[in-house]
């Protein structure tokens, strides 16, 4: 997150308490949302649940364009709009909700490094598979991405999006990779995460942090999303401690919450395999 955005977020988040009406916006869950957006959205929802902040999930076909940064998810709290996990973490912190206060500087730096790793590897791999793998792009990504739009706008927008992502992949040097190499990168990333996690319940022992939310968001979505092939999920399944980590967070923050508040509004969550 840029310095200006950081300053902005902490400035706008006045001392007002977290309102009950806080809403998270994401693309249509059934027909539209793609793996990468779904993972980011789940990460934010997990983070907010870990903080104990209530949020309602609303699906909008134009969520991407409503977002001030052009990326989903974003939250609408009071009269403020904040998008993506990083700024949302800052925003929650400005409102007095933080998961990483108990960490020392070294740990905090380590946490940020791992979050960067997840964003640079897992998120980029998800984008690569969605838009650069031709069969996934034509069978899943383009039809889903363009589902809310009328012909011929659906084709225009989905190819425009694909072109944008491919341009980005070119810029970061991923364009030359093939699918196998990307799976290998995912495997390496999981290896690093698995080693860091070890036998602890969370990455920084007993207390969950935003890193846990981010890793859970991505891994759980990868495990539960049907893609053109199961190869990506298989790479993650090779690490048993990551699997049980996902299971634990799901049990703690989604199953129990839903059981407690079964009568009240249904909070959205990733579906089980």
């Amino acid at each position, binding site marked *: 997150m840029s310095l200006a955005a950081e300053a902005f977020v902490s400035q706008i988040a006045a001392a007002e308490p977290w309102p009950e009406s806080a809403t998270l916006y994401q693309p249509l869950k059934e027909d539209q949302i793609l793996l990468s957006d779904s993972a980011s959205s789940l990460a934010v929802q997990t983070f907010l649940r870990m903080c104990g902040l209530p949020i309602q999930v609303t699906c*909008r*076909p*134009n969520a*991407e*364009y*409503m977002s*001030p940064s052009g990326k989903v998810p974003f939250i*609408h709290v009071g*009269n403020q*709009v904040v998008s993506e996990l990083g700024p949302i973490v800052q925003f929650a912190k400005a409102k007095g909700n933080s998961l990483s206060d108990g960490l020392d500087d070294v740990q905090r730096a380590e946490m940020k490094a791992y979050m960067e790793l997840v964003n640079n590897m897992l998120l980029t791999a998800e984008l690569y598979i969605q838009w650069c793998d031709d069969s996934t792009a034509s069978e899943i990504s383009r039809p889903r991405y363009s589902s809310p*739009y*009328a*012909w011929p*706008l659906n084709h*225009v*927008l989905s190819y425009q999006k694909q072109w944008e992502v491919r341009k980005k992949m070119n810029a970061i040097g991923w364009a030359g990779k093939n699918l196998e190499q990307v799976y290998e990168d995912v495997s390496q990333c999981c290896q690093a995460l698995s080693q860091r996690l070890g036998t602890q319940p969370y990455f920084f022992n007993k207390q969950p942090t935003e890193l846990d939310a981010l890793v859970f968001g991505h891994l759980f979505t990868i495990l539960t999303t049907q893609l053109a092939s199961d190869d990506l999920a298989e790479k993650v399944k090779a690490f048993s401690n990551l699997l049980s980590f996902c299971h634990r967070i799901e049990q703690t923050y989604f199953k129990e919450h839903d059981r407690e508040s079964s009568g009240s509004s249904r909070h959205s969550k990733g579906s089980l395999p």
Partner: protein
Amino acid sequence: MGTVHARSMDSFPMSGRDLGVHPDDVDVMEAGQETKQEILENKDVVVQHVNISGLGRTKEDYLGFEISDVFTARNLVEVMRKSHEARQKLLHLGIFKDVEVVIDISEGADALPNGLDVTFDVTELKRLTGSYNTMVGNNEGSMVLGIKLPNMCGRGERLTFQFSYGTKETSYGFSFFKPQPGYYQRNFTLNLYKVTGQFPWSSLRETDRGVSTELNFPLWRTDHTLKWEGVWRELGCLARSASFAVREESGHTLKSALSHTMAVDTRNSSILPRRGALLRISQELAGYTGGDASFLKEDFEVQLNKPFLWGSVLSASLWGGMLFPIGGQTTSIADRFYLGGPTSVRGFGMYSIGPQSEGDFLGGGAYWAGGLHLYTPLPFRSTRGGLADLFRTHFFLNAGNLCNLNYGEGPRAHLQKLAECIRWSYGAGIILRLGNIARLELNYCIPMGVQSGDRICDGVQFGAGIRFL
């Protein structure tokens, strides 16, 4: 009998907008010609040949209709008048730079003693013309670069490319125009365009990319336009601080709409008319031909002008419109009506009347606006004509309302809703006419009936535009 050059007969009226003569001046011509007519009227003549010289790429058959009337002339005055009319028609086609008329006695073997030959000596426009001009639209100025290919294939076709760089928007457009040979008013236009606009009153930015085809034709005394438009609209917030209601409208929509406009215009000028009336009714049906916006939009405009005491003009106008959503869809912020500002209900901010959210105006599903004006010439002016003729003072009374209707209720409830909370204003000001297409106004306004949320402009208000209430 010698040669008569009809070119100097400029006392005949020139009609048509692009000829640069103010229709205001039309009524001065008749006096000087009575005496000439008496002498020449009785001399019978026969028009034997009508020639057009100077044609390059223009196909001769395209001009047949314009000049055929000259053959029906039976005396010299008629020949001159019909030739002059034909010249006007030829100029009106927009493919000639200049047309000269030469009337001469017939020569050759088959020449009759009272036979005449009429020759139109035309100068064609260049194949490619460029233009550079500045434009004043509704409260916005822009610089327009244009490239035009007039008379591309020899039958009046015109291809235009325009690039406009404005204070608020940058846009471009391609346009192809084709008239029906012999019936210029019946024409077909194809447009391709991209327009970007910023609407600060709604904190909204809109980019439109579209295709439209248009068919214009006169029917009895009315002008009709049939149009299909397919437009891809991209809406976004102008600033991070935009209200959430505007943010919710962001994104892409596709509108495919059929529309029909009927207009009757008997005014002598479109900017500062002295007499005549205008009626324009238009309807737009979107969604029937595809796209994801579905609505029916009705809009009308009436204006009546009457000369009043001491050269002043009394003018009354009424606008109104309704937007009916179809199929339970909500209407887009880009399709709704807006009201207020120096070109409609004066004394209010630009489009700053009616439904709003956190200071961003969202537009409404129904509106009406009426205006009563008294235009007077500037006091103490010395002679007719000159700079003072471009100015008018005016006193005005404007009123209007913009709201959303609940279409479950009956028309009585609708009328009641439109009659509630009427905004109105009165004041006086000075108007400057810019050519025959736009006008500037400097007014002192007193807004009344202001509702909470409306943005007002109490006192001096400046406005520029092409369409005025």
